[in-house]
């Protein structure tokens, strides 16, 4: 029996294909080879012919729908078009990024079509025609291997940076334009615009040394201690999401998927548990050192050195000793 193709929904913003697209295509290519089927990139947008040509290097086929109705991302419009394409081409698997766009469209699409879905997947494989996935639970402290209910077609959302964009091809895939199946703007949802945040006072992405602080700091009153340490190290203060949520530091200091991606020479993570949303923004730093009293904190799996201790004891020691060193110099 002929297995249906593997669909990868290309994600793009402001005319650029996003990294997750190539990460998914690479994994999709491997899965398609294993199943002996086609890898198909799905591209929705307006005037996206250039992107379609680019995707053709990465897939056996590019299905693209170009229409003013798809100019901006709209979950309702995307869902309608994807439902049509899946119904017509019957892919064995549709891969969508676990991104702000992806999670806005994939779960409702799955319900509409009655197709099993697994979200935020780190790995995927087929065993006897059934899809198996690896995902994370409990804030990244544990992984789970799960199987999807047997079906003719599956949907997954794929975690960003779970796969390295690989070297294969170019495949010179066939580029096929598909007539837009929707004729009017979705009634319930209207795109208004994109808001870009004003640039902050400090650009943490330019710093060589980042001292980053998380939930473990417990109180706003304790932030100056971190600022003092950062200053002594000639670095800047950054933070994980909860600190910005609480209003203790401005948004432009946030490291992670909804904040900045940084690659300093030193990333000192203090009281940060290491949820994926944070780690994805700092894991490629040259040297990573974590201070956390929980020895099982996920951050240690991304660190070169770790101190398992109370930050309120270690940080004052660091400050004291740094001052002594500086005093001598």
């Amino acid at each position, binding site marked *: 029996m002929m297995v249906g193709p593997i669909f990868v929904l290309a994600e793009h913003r402001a005319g650029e294909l996003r990294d997750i697209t190539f990460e998914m295509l690479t994994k999709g290519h491997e899965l398609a080879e294993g199943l002996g089927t086609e890898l198909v990139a799905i591209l929705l947008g307006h005037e996206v012919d250039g992107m379609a040509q680019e995707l053709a290097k990465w897939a056996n086929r590019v299905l693209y729908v170009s229409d003013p109705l798809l100019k901006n991302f709209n*979950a309702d419009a995307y869902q309608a078009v994807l439902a049509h394409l899946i119904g017509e081409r019957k892919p064995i698997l549709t891969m969508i990024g676990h991104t702000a766009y992806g*999670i806005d469209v994939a779960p409702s699409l799955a*319900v509409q079509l009655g197709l099993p879905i697994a979200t935020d997947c780190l790995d995927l494989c087929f065993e006897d025609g059934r899809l198996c996935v690896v995902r994370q639970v409990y804030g990244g402290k*544990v992984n789970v291997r799960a199987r999807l209910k047997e079906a003719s077609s599956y949907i997954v959302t794929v975690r960003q940076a779970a796969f390295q964009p690989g070297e294969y091809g170019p495949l010179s895939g066939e580029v096929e334009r598909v007539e837009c199946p929707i004729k009017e703007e979705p009634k319930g949802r209207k795109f208004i615009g994109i*808001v870009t945040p004003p640039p902050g006072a400090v650009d943490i992405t330019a710093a060589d040394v980042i001292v980053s602080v998380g939930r473990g700091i417990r109180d706003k009153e304790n932030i100056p201690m971190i600022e003092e340490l950062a200053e002594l190290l000639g670095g800047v203060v950054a933070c994980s*999401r909860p600190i910005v949520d609480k209003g203790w530091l401005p948004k432009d200091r946030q490291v992670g998927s909804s904040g900045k991606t940084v690659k300093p020479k030193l990333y000192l993570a203090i009281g940060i548990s290491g949820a994926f949303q944070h780690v994805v923004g700092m894991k490629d730093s040259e040297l990573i050192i974590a201070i956390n009293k929980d020895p099982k904190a996920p951050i240690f799996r991304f660190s070169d050195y770790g101190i398992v201790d109370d930050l309120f004891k270690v940080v004052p020691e660091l400050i004291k000793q740094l001052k002594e060193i500086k005093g001598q110099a």
Partner: protein
Amino acid sequence: MDIIVCVKHVPDTTEAEVRIRPDKKDIEKEGLPLKINEWDEYAAEEAILIKERLGGTVVAITVGPPEAEATLRRVLAKGADMAIRVWDGSLEGSDGYVIAKVLAKTIEAKGLKYDLILTGAQAADDGFAVVGPMLAELLGIPHATLVKKEEILDGRVRVHRELEGGLEEVVELELPALLTIQTGINEPRYVSVMGIRRARKKPLEVLSLSDIGMGPDEVGPAGSWLEVEELFLPPAERVAEIIPGSPAEEAAKLLEILKSRGLI
């Protein structure tokens, strides 16, 4: 403005050591503190803020065993008017799809009126991020996920969705609509023990599966799309060398490492 807020009572593993159960199907939950899912705390707060601004009602719903009532009482203490807890032993091991179906059936069975449904953007335990948008699809209403700002307009709601890299997408939905709420949208108010005690006078209804017209074969592993095979510890990307000693020794060693690399 009548609002339904869907909440979940979850183990708090942010600072706790997590151990995998011998059958590898879940973690040991014994002894772990339980609390309202962090995202749902913001969703509940947002519901109360809208009610305080525009009037109307807030109904909180959870799918969970009796101890989950602690989370409902908390939302009642914040200012919700009534709460509903749905449970049956067969719901154990349900995935997000099943929970969305149970919520949809509950809303239909009780004939709840709503202009807005709020959920957390995801749960701290399973992290699916699917229940909100699936519930919206089942009810046939529009949704927006990862909402960090909302403004109720005439018959519509304008929301800011959080995109990657600090960007925001602004969209308008027709009411009734469902929003999944991102952390940081507001500052959840302090809930006192006294407040929770006072909230005991507010109605909290307990429903079984049959009350909402569902059977055990539609829920739990039987009704779920996802079946857990096993839990395991994630592999390390880097192997952290743990610096031993007292805080003074740890600090000294850390500074030595920085010095050897020319960082100080």
